[in-house]
């Protein structure tokens, strides 16, 4: 199998399988997202049959997200590396146990308890037709606010595998965001072996000198569409994908801001207290005088109508427009 043949989903399950092979007490719990993936050449990865129960949820667990998260956190506290994978509209059920237990237990126990727990959140997208509960993007900001938690947002198959390996190996709880919009399209090659993409290291997707654009999954999709138009408009944009939101690579962001003097943050999350606000706060504290602007999905639930949704989404035309205005500011 060549590396390029791996889908995003296969790369992720490969990471889980490799770590589960390396650690016989590791567990992977999920609801209806059965962990099976194949490659175009017919290689099948089936974690249900390879690891069985109770290391996996077999052919599915009940629609009881508290149980899935609670079971994983309990197992992690006892010493298993544990992943709980939840669907987008139901991940918030996990918040109580994550809020009160996952991020606090090491501190509360004076360092006795470890928490090698990964909350794998299957994200939604700012797309038409689902409406409200099935369109939420930006929940990473909620988790990033919690002490003890780490948060990563991969935007391509290479980072998806590497960040997942890092998350599994991390002795602290990690929220791993899995957004659907970054899973398609052309993907970088994914090595067969397990490898880590370290937390706290941003990726500079495009170097530039006029303006810094910051976006993470899934806004990277819109920024990628905007970049050619910005080049045509004669704007040299530097595009940074933090990948890991907490810890955040403030150093790389600040270095870029010092160079360009201007920063545009694109956030598919809701405006108020969205993670982009934190990015700007950190950068402006490090590099006073940076001219900044954030464009974000408004403080509204995503509507079902395609007309409304595409108007609300901070997409490529709005990014291009914002970049142009920022250059004049």
């Amino acid at each position, binding site marked *: 199998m060549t590396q390029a043949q791996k889908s995003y989903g296969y790369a992720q399950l490969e990471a889980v399988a490799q770590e589960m092979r390396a650690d016989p007490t590791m567990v992977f719990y999920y609801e209806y997202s059965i962990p099976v993936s194949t490659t175009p050449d017919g290689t099948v990865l089936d974690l249900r049959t390879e690891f069985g129960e109770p290391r996996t949820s077999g052919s599915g667990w*009940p629609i*009881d997200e508290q149980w899935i998260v609670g079971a994983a956190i309990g197992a992690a506290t006892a010493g298993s590396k544990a992943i709980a994978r939840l669907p987008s509209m139901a991940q918030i059920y996990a918040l109580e146990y994550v809020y009160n237990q996952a991020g606090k237990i090491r501190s509360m126990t004076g360092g006795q308890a470890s928490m090698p727990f990964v909350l794998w959140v299957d994200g939604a997208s700012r797309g*038409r*037709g*689902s*409406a409200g*509960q099935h369109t939420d993007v930006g929940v990473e900001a909620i988790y990033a606010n919690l002490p003890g938690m780490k948060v990563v947002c991969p935007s391509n198959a290479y980072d998806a595998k590497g960040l997942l390996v890092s998350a599994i190996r991390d002795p602290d709880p990690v929220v791993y965001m899995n957004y659907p919009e970054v899973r398609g399209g052309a993907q970088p090659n994914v090595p067969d072996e397990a490898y880590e993409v370290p937390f706290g290291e941003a990726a500079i997707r495009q170097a530039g000198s006029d303006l810094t654009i910051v976006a993470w999954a899934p806004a990277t999709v819109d920024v990628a569409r905007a970049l050619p138009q910005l080049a045509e408009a004669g704007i040299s944009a530097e595009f940074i994908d933090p990948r890991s939101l907490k810890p955040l690579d403030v150093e790389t962001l600040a270095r870029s801001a010092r160079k360009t003097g201007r920063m545009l943050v694109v956030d598919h999350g809701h405006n108020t207290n969205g993670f982009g606000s934190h990015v700007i706060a950190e950068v402006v504290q490090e590099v006073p005088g940076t001219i900044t602007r954030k464009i974000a999905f*408004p403080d*509204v639930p995503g509507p079902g109508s395609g007309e409304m949704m595409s108007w609300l989404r901070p997409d490529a035309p*709005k990014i291009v427009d914002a970049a142009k205005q920022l250059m004049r500011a």
Partner: protein
Amino acid sequence: MMETKGTVDRRTLLKMMGAAGASGAVFAACGVPGAGASGTLARGVTGAEFDKSIRLATGGPGGNKDWRPGDSLKYLPAEDIPTRGSASDGLASRPKEKLLEMYWRMNASRKWESTMKDLFLGGDDGLYGAFHPSAGEEAMAVGVMGALNDDDYIASTHRGHAHLIAKGGDLNKMSAEIFFKESGYNRGYGGSMHITDMSKGIMGMNGIVGASYYMAAGAALHAMVRGTSQVSVAFFGDGASASPYYFSAVRSCANQNIPCLFVAENNFQYMSVPMARTAPTKYLTEYTKGLDIPHFLVDGNDVSAVHEATSEAVEWARAGNGPSVIEGMTFRWYDHAGFSGARIGEDGASNLPYRTDEEVRGWISRDPITRYRRWLVATDNATEAELDDVESDVRKAVDESITFARESKNPAPEAGVLNTYASKAATATQFYNRQGLVG
């Protein structure tokens, strides 16, 4: 209590408060006698499985753990619904116009969904979005709603089109919402999964599994606060029975005699996950048996059985006795969402990996609408010609609703920042200047 604060010490105060709480709990427990509960068990059920299980309502622990695709056929009821017995008599005692209205609504739900299926598959209207068909389960919706008053509340599920139509939902507004038009029930914001009509006590379909329990229980509390005799119904599926909210809501309604009915539409299919993974017991009604409230287990494709169980549960609730749990065994003809395995002009979806085609055909042969039609004729409540007229009328209403939807306007894109807050638009933060493209 505040006045006594200065005159009693803290220990005495706490003792007073504790005593009040304890006596209240004892009083509530005594208010739900076990004999009363078991005396109201449903009678109008069909099929050997159901008869045997009316009182026990169980296959014992582990009842579903060996579930295999096709096992729902073990629950298949008789071909015809009984034309005698308490359920049949109960329904037959309703005015003829009510019986025909129920027939209209069952047909409207089916024809409306079948039409939407054909339009989604046909593609000419460019329909998009989530659509969870309830075809095959109409007897549950119409049977329950037939026993409610117009001002009673219901909280529906993601699979709730039949609930909406059974409670008098407007087909035009429903169709327009599927088309995401301004004239739709939710003005294009909600789509299939969130259709709501507050004016009819329909607290909405909901995209979150298990959201109905607290919605309905809270509405029942509202009715208690206002001093009305309204009741509330929470619909849920077998999958949603796993939600911790379920036991929580039933328990608290039992504890406080809250007039809420919990109606399970057990269709044996939580998305594509086998039943064995969801419910360790044979019936969902097992879960709350210890609460000593009425439980009804019925043939969910028999509108008379559902109607009878609901009538008893409603009477029990209106009399101040609190909640009941009703479980109807039924079957959804299509996939969880959308129309995989379905064809234009044909009923049911085939070739789905988690169930057998034999199973689908078996349940289609127990079509709740056909069974009701035969009952209406056999009991001399309607003639074939009258029922044909009803069906023609339904066809016309469904077709008109599609025309209405097609001719309606799309919502303005800028409406996207409205309706989140009661009085003020949200800021258009997606734009640099918070208004629109500057250029």
